[in-house]
């Protein structure tokens, strides 16, 4: 029975992954034949890498669906029943941090930043900056659920702040900042944290799970942009002192 629950729907996940990769493979094949003409051994290694990534993606998504999705909702409903509702705020901070710390897409971005900057900006710095940012946005999301704060009260000042910070930040960080927003809303956030919020919303009277739960993703997409732009300001300052 466990095995059946464990593997339910894995064929669909596999099909989706193959389908998502198809255009890249076709595109690369055309380029390889017409322009690139890379050596055969190299191409075989690339193909192995792509195969590995697809296999990993299938296992990861299936694992998240059977393990983390239901866990988020159960925990959300259980903690919403606490008498001391404000506890949800530090609790959201804690789980938001841990979920982003485990998010694979965040590590891909961090790795690519460290490579592109030749080690000048460390992968771990990006990782901690994004994890902290998501932690703050999940605790804000929880505060919103507990006290019924409208989503726009958080989103509008947030985006205005983005514009202000854009003026002061180091230009190397602009692209990374906006990429971070999309990267942080990966499978961990969307399955685990979203189901956590939906669980909490279902457990608090007067909250609509759909409307109030889903606003969380908008917050998770916003906070990393702000935090990386701030990181850029810090970098600019320290560099300014050096020169």
């Amino acid at each position, binding site marked *: 029975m466990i095995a059946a629950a464990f593997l339910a729907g894995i064929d669909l996940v596999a099909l989706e992954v193959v389908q998502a990769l198809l255009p890249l493979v076709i595109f690369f094949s055309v380029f390889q034949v017409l322009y690139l003409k890379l050596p055969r051994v190299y191409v075989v290694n690339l193909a192995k890498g792509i195969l590995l990534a697809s296999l990993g993606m299938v296992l990861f998504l299936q694992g998240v669906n059977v393990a983390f999705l239901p866990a988020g909702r159960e925990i959300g409903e259980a903690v919403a029943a606490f008498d001391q509702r404000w506890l949800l705020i530090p609790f959201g901070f804690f789980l938001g941090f841990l979920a982003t710390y485990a998010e694979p897409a965040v590590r891909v971005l961090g790795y690519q930043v460290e490579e592109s900057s030749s080690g000048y900006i460390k992968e771990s710095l990006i990782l901690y900056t994004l994890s902290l940012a998501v932690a703050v946005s999940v605790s804000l999301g929880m505060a919103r659920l507990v006290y019924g704060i409208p989503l726009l009260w958080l989103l509008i000042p947030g985006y205005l702040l983005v514009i202000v910070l854009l003026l002061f930040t180091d230009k190397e960080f602009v692209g990374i900042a*906006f990429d971070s927003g999309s990267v942080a809303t990966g499978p961990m956030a969307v399955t685990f944290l979203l189901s956590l919020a939906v669980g909490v919303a279902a457990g608090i009277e007067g909250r609509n799970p759909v409307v109030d739960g889903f606003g969380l993703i908008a917050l998770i*997409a916003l906070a990393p942009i702000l935090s990386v732009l701030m990181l850029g300001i810090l970098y600019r300052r320290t560099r300014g002192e050096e020169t």
Partner: protein
Amino acid sequence: MQDIRETVFEVLRAVLPIILVITIFKIALLRVPPSDLLLFLLGSGMVILGIALFLSGVKAGLLPVGEAIGSELPARGSLLLVVAGSFLFGFLTIVAEPNLRVLTEMLDAVPGAGIPSGPLLLAIAVSVGFVITVAVLRIIFGFPLAYLFVVGYGAILLLAPFSSPEFLAVAVDAGGITTGLLTIPIILALGTGVSAVLAGRSALTDGFGLIGLASIAPILGVMVMGLVYA
């Protein structure tokens, strides 16, 4: 294989904290039956192995492939190749994104939603293809990235009051959905690949931002589609 073993340890360090916390919750707070706990732990094992394989594969396959394509685009000195190549790259990557199919299936399932899923998919893919092209041209001609974001968000704010509520909701969701786990490394590498081969461009300053743009493009695309339908 050595690499994969190292990656597994790295991933263990990443995922173990949240697995431990959930396990403690399940035992202490929820008092779940052992079969439920077993399912969670098995699933977690799958997540660990999955991320390890995924990250190794991304570094060995997806990123180099994306970079190879990205660095070849401007190398021919043909603007047509750059424009057609970037557009097709963005368009095809998005058409294949599984998340998008989920969105269109949901829309089809709602009776009388009034948003046809075929044109919606087309609007999203065309807008991402367009934005990827603009972003690649930006890297080549070197105007500031911040302008693109200011124009993009500005256009969203301008169009929002004119959009019907249904299209607005779908538009904002579409923005978050297009950048799936596989699309991220592919588009990321395209940008760093293009900027790495150009003299006077650094992969760090110029290569990033494509994913951010790819997630605001569909918002605009769907809003414009809504205006056309209205």
